[in-house]
């Protein structure tokens, strides 16, 4: 059997080892999503004080399981699949060290199992942050170390793949933009995982009583892992945005220089966002805080706003060039909203930008952070970025990975088509309600947000109970959306209808295949640009320009409302 297969849909030569590594990482990612999702349901039904399902110890256990599975295992296993896909598959090249790939995968799985065992048996009720001096079983820390070493090996493997691809002339000139985005994610992953190794090795020794670990030092280095790992997500998500845009509607890249510069800004500056978590720590000076969260971080925010413009603008221009020229938003009306890949892309961009982006930048301001820190506003923000943004994009690309890599049709395709809507609506309600609850000062992480047996009463507004109820309803809708995704992917991958080796899916009707495969966007011709005609006052992408202006207005309004809230606390004069 040849080491390569030819994809009948894309014509790409796919190394079979890459195929297998992508499948293995994606399957484990989905299992982690299932485990994290079960914990999410239990946490949610406890957070909803009208239900208060779990006792305190089980709440913290489930919160730990939820955090580790969602923020580390699901996301990073999926990103490993993205790294193999964006390198070996998109570059038409071989995996240079297949055994290394499998050893890395095995290390990650063994590490995951060790962490799962300690968490489920109550030996690591330390939450995702595992702050020292909270102490978990040594195998918890060892498991994380093994996982990090495995993931770091995959990152090294990614760099080896693109180096070999260049030497073997699998590509010439610059890397494709999607691979470039994956390269950005890999670079951020390297710095992230190095921080993980630096902090978890001494913490492992501390758990064996072999050394001392300073709590403030732990927080500093740990957040180099904890927040930067979410920046790997951002880079991988944006790379997938470009890929989904091309696959679903034939989106064009407006300007390669601009998009690549935005990725380079991520490489240089996005990891500094870790400093947001230390903004109220007395140990860190204002110069360090301001430098890292303002001067440097805003360069990464600029990058996100560039991508937030270029992806929808590329989508609009790609569609206008193919004839969707009616009015400002005719291209949106004609967009393939029944394609789960496209709807996932659209929701991912909108919720990530409008909710996650705006809140994140606002909370990252040192003065405002004092009223948002350790309230529900923070999980409200990161559920909009990591879940509604990254996980949504990962779900969208899954609907293309199943037929293109697993060579299966999507099971329950009608359910798959509505899944992004259910998930996005649920998460939007959930994260916005969480943010509002946090505005009233409701703390994050606490089992009992009412402090019923405490010596003091926080005296929240009665509106908080209603907002928490809305949050729970939104969360339940999102969990239904997540469950549909898991059912569809598991049934498709293990029991879905197999596609023949030469079945491209082109022109197929009534099958579990997205429109980007059955009826892909036609290639552009030089005359398409002439047919588009001259641009109006808002340029060649007027619809996106209007959306950008709405975004900026929302951003300015939210930012200044937060300064107003701060002024209520700090009276001047």
């Amino acid at each position: 059997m040849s080491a390569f297969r030819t994809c009948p849909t894309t014509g790409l030569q796919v190394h079979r080892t890459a195929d297998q590594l992508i499948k293995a990482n994606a399957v484990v990612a989905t299992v982690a999503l299932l485990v994290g999702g079960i914990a999410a349901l239990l946490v949610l039904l406890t957070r909803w004080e009208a239900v208060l399902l779990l006792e305190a110890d089980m709440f913290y256990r489930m919160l730990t399981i939820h955090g580790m599975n969602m923020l580390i295992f699901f996301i990073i296993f999926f990103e490993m699949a993205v790294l193999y896909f964006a390198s070996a598959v998109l570059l038409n090249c071989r995996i240079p060290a297949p055994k290394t790939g499998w050893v890395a995968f095995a290390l990650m799985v063994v590490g995951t199992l060790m962490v799962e065992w300690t968490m489920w048996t109550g030996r690591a009720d330390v939450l995702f942050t595992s702050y020292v001096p909270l102490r978990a079983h040594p195998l918890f820390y060892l498991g994380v170390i093994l996982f990090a070493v495995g993931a770091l090996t995959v990152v090294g493997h990614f760099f080896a793949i693109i180096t070999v691809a260049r030497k073997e002339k699998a590509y010439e000139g610059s890397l494709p933009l999607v691979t470039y985005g994956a390269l950005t994610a890999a670079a951020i992953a390297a710095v992230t995982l190095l921080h993980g190794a630096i902090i978890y090795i001494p913490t492992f020794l501390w758990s064996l009583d072999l050394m001392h670990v300073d709590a403030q030092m732990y927080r500093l280095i740990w957040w180099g892992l904890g927040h930067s790992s979410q920046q790997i997500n951002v880079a991988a998500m944006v790379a997938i945005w470009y890929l989904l845009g091309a696959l679903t509607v034939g989106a064009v890249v407006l300007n390669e220089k601009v998009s690549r510069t935005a990725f380079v800004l991520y490489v240089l500056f996005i990891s500094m966002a870790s400093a947001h978590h230390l903004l109220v720590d007395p140990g860190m000076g204002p110069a360090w805080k301001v430098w890292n969260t303002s001067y440097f971080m805003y360069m990464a925010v600029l990058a996100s706003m560039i991508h937030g413009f270029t992806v929808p603008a590329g989508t609009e221009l790609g569609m206008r060039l193919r004839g969707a020229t009616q009015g400002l938003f005719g291209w949106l009306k004609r967009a393939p909203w029944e394609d789960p890949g496209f709807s996932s892309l659209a929701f991912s961009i909108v919720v990530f930008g409008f909710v996650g982006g705006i809140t994140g930048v606002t909370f990252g301001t040192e003065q405002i952070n004092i009223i948002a820190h350790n309230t529900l506003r923070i999980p409200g923000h990161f559920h909009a970025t990591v879940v509604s943004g990254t996980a949504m994009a990962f779900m969208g690309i899954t609907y293309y990975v199943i037929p293109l890599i697993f060579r299966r049709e999507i099971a329950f395709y009608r359910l798959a088509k509505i899944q992004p809507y259910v998930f996005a609506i649920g998460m939007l309600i959930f994260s916005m309600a969480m943010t509002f609850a946090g505005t009233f000062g409701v703390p994050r992480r606490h089992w009992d947000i009412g402090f019923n047996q405490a010596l003091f009463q926080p005296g929240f507004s009665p509106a908080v109970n209603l907002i928490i109820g809305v949050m729970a309803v939104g969360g339940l809708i999102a969990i239904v959306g997540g469950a549909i995704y898991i059912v569809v992917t598991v049934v498709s991958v293990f029991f879905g209808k197999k596609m023949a080796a030469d079945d491209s899916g082109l022109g197929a009707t009534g099958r579990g295949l997205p429109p980007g495969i059955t009826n892909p966007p036609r290639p552009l011709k030089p005359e398409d640009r002439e047919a588009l005609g001259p641009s109006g006052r808002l340029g060649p992408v007027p619809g996106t320009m209007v959306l950008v202006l709405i975004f900026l207005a929302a951003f300015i309004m939210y930012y200044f409302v937060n300064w107003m809230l701060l002024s209520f606390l700090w009276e001047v004069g």
Partner: protein
Amino acid sequence: MSEPSTTSSSEPPPARRRNPPVPRMQRLYDSPFLLLAACIVVMFVFFTAWGVFEIMSLEPAPLP
């Protein structure tokens, strides 16, 4: 009668015309290991090392 040639001897050969020099910034952007090194150095210098220095410079709090 044959057509006159339109290629002057001063023009570069066709192969070179097809491959114009790559701009310096693009060469920088196309260096994966340079990007990796830049990512690690910037983070470790401004976030990690500076942060460690801040913590190490703290005076021990006097006990009550």
